[in-house]
């Protein structure tokens, strides 16, 4: 089902007008209380958060495992480890860890004295139960299951010591365990039926799920006995807020209007036009928290013509004017990327020189590749076939600004003689087009902590479709050299060597023109100035309200 009100052209002036109105209102109200983060935190109050993401089907992120679940479960569930702002792993529910010489067994020491909100103590048996829960096919876990893929067994050595045995060394294990999809829940609560656990999972987090009114909101109340903040960044003791109301407001313009009206205090999925509009506001502040893992990029399907020819791939990359499109359509809210990895990944490797817009070079490459003739419409032809690129676009995953950007690509690539056929599809149809290999270009976001996402996206194993037909290696790179680098990197814990391997791997991906990097996976939050202390977890960039407080 396509929604006509997604049209961005209409939203831009509308939002601009809305902002003018808010500035006026703010002027009238006489300034109000200053709400800089300077003051002393005060306890109390209910914060209303409005999400534009889909309503989770289950509040337990072990089940399935998508971003909407990560967003909300970060308020009540906590993982074993976290990351600091430099991208280094820091303790959370696990206070320390050690891996064996051969990398095949890991020993985790769990924090003492932590209790789940149902009173169950956090111990080694509890963590073991969680790992087994996520690995149990009956749980139907996707993301968590993949994160724990190499864990063969878990064993409680004593109450607070857990030993994990791996099938092969896993340099990404700590990064995987930092993700909300494998956060730790009360083993007692996990014993309930999946229905019950989905409705109100029990964790150790600063808030507790209180009530879920479907299609409307989830209410969470403060965990008064909270005692387990991560090793860096959070204040000790319980949260300041009494409660959080987590509302589902799918329509972007309504969400922003509700924020302006003060009906809600924080919104996610803020679109570029509203972010830009909010810049001039005293009342509304902006939190930019790009997601980890892969950058947003076009994947060039190298498994079939015309992109089986590297020259045609490079010609396409040179023929699209990315920078102008990004700066006009995203109003400076998105920074251009030249890497397969998100800029929040410490091991991201960039090479700007490969991706300059150069129409002449594009034309030269296409001539060289044998696409010399043009038909009456101006498109290049070879052996009677037009140089056509099928580009299925998921309207669920590409925001309106991105869809417009792709239309600009279509226009600039035409000058070089490419016919880009944009096809806007809902998610299931989009998956269908990919499963049938009926695409030359595609944009597919992938969120994961750490550079191991490169193995998922570019190892030839990932070209083999799952039973559903889906595969993650959408550029369909099949390179023995790359496979070897990625496999080795995933088993190498020595930091310098790991970095070198991932750099080599990224060079192959970039220099082979398998992808066209665009920008980080956008993740913008807007909040009202009466809220202080809003921050995003440096793992998958979900916001957390443990430190948040409300003035007035």
């Amino acid at each position: 089902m396509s929604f006509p009100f997604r049209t961005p052209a209409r939203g831009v002036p509308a939002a601009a007008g809305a902002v003018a109105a808010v500035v006026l209102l703010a002027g009238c109200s006489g300034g109000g209380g200053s709400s800089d983060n300077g003051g002393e935190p005060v306890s109390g109050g209910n914060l209303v958060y409005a999400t534009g993401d889909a309503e989770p089907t289950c509040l337990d992120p072990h089940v399935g495992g998508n971003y909407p679940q990560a967003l909300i479960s970060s308020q009540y569930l906590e993982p074993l480890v976290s990351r600091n702002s430099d991208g280094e792993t820091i303790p959370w529910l696990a206070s320390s860890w050690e891996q064996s010489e051969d990398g095949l067994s890991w020993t985790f020491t769990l924090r003492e004295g932590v209790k789940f909100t149902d009173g169950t103590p956090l111990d080694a048996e509890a963590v073991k139960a969680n790992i087994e829960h996520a690995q149990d096919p009956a749980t139907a876990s996707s993301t968590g299951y993949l994160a724990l893929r190499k864990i063969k067994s878990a064993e409680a050595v004593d109450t607070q010591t857990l030993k994990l045995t791996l099938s092969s060394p896993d340099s990404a294990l700590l990064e995987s365990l930092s993700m909300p999809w494998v956060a730790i829940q009360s083993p007692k609560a996990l014993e309930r039926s999946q229905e019950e656990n989905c409705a109100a999972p029990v964790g150790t987090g600063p808030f507790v799920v209180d009530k879920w009114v479907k299609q409307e909101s989830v209410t969470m109340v403060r965990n008064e006995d909270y005692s387990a903040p991560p090793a860096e960044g959070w204040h000790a003791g319980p949260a300041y807020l009494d409660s959080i109301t987590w509302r589902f407001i799918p329509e972007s313009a309504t969400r922003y209007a509700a924020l302006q009206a003060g009906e809600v205090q924080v919104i996610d999925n803020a679109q570029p036009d509203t972010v830009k509009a909010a810049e001039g506001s005293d009342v509304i502040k902006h939190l930019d928290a790009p997601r980890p893992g892969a950058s947003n990029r076009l994947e060039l399907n190298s498994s079939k013509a015309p992109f089986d020819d590297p020259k045609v791939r490079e010609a396409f990359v040179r023929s699209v004017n990315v920078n102008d499109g990004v700066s006009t359509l995203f109003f400076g809210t998105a920074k251009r990327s030249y890497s397969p990895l998100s800029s929040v990944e410490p091991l991201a490797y960039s090479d700007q020189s490969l991706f300059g817009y150069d129409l002449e070079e594009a034309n030269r490459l296409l001539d060289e590749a044998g696409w010399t003739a043009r038909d009456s419409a101006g498109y290049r032809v070879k052996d009677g076939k037009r140089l056509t690129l099928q580009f299925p676009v998921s309207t669920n995953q590409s925001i309106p600004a991105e869809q417009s950007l792709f239309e600009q690509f279509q226009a600039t690539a035409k000058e070089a003689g490419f016919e880009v056929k944009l096809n806007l599809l809902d998610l299931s149809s989009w998956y269908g087009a990919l499963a049938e290999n009926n695409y030359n270009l595609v944009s597919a976001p992938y969120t994961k902590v750490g550079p191991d996402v490169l193995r998922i996206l570019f190892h030839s194993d990932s070209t083999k479709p799952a039973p559903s037909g889906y595969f993650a290696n959408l550029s369909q790179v099949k390179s023995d050299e790359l496979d070897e680098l990625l496999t080795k990197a995933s088993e190498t814990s020595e930091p310098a060597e790991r970095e070198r391997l991932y750099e080599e791997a990224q060079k192959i991906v970039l220099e082979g023109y398998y992808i066209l990097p665009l920008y980080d996976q956008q993740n913008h939050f807007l909040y009202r100035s009466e809220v202080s202390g809003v921050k995003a977890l440096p793992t998958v960039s979900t916001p957390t309200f443990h430190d948040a407080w409300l003035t007035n």
Partner: protein
Amino acid sequence: MADQLKPVRWVLAKVLGAAFVLWAVATLIFFGIRMIPGDPAEAILGGPGSQASPEALEQVRRDYGLDQPLLAQYAAQLGRLIRGDLGDSYSLRMPVADLIANQLPGTLLLSALSLLVAWLLALGLAGWSTLNGRAAGVVASGLEIAAAAVPHFWLASVLILLFSNSLGWLPPVNTGSADGLILPVVTLALPLAGFLGQVMRESMLAAMSSPFALSARARGEGESGVLFRHALRHAALPGIALSGWAFGNLLSGAVVVESIFARPGLGRTLLNAVTLRDIPLVTGVALVSALAYVLVMAASDVAERAADPRLRTA
């Protein structure tokens, strides 16, 4: 004797007709949703961003009977429906009947209020223009056409910008209180009032120049008296006949309006269910909507008979 049987036969025909409509809806949805590419098993596992493992997919297919042949699934589905069992929603993991019971009141309230407001607006405009001559007729006709042509999503955005952002009078989202209902009701009512107004005004004008209006005037009745005592009933007839259709229009409008104003309801449930390939939920909502439509059609039939004595003898 034959005259006494008539209502019985009428009711029987309606019931059979309704049963056929419900069966057709269930069948169309069952096969229709499978023609859209995409795997319901993957949708059950969270769809976007979650890469389902083969084990998880297999588990889900077994759990939901998706590994059975299509016709077997269809037969099982019909069997369940006949027993009154709407099944469990894939995506919300709740019985469909409970979900609909939770979401229906909001949509019914929204639709009923919108229908009422649309009726009042349409009758008011028709009455005003009838009493105020040709120029007023042109103005009314222009307003009706403009209102009828306005898409819901556009109207909703304009109303939010005007009354929430600029004036700050009304909340842009559902607040649980009555003021949150005003903008969604106006959004649904205005275009409908445009449609209803056009037909009502025409039949009101026709009634005002008919012989019975003339004789009323001859008895000394004033223009407004003629309008309220005589012409109104005539103007209402096509309005009543259209109300069944209008209700269907409101239900589909609710899909857009509930999403924009973030209201819980059947429309938003249906939109989410379609996006997630939640077959039991789509089927359930469609069946309930079809049933509501059939009931409202029957009710407007009855109301039309009550308002128009000519139909009773037919």
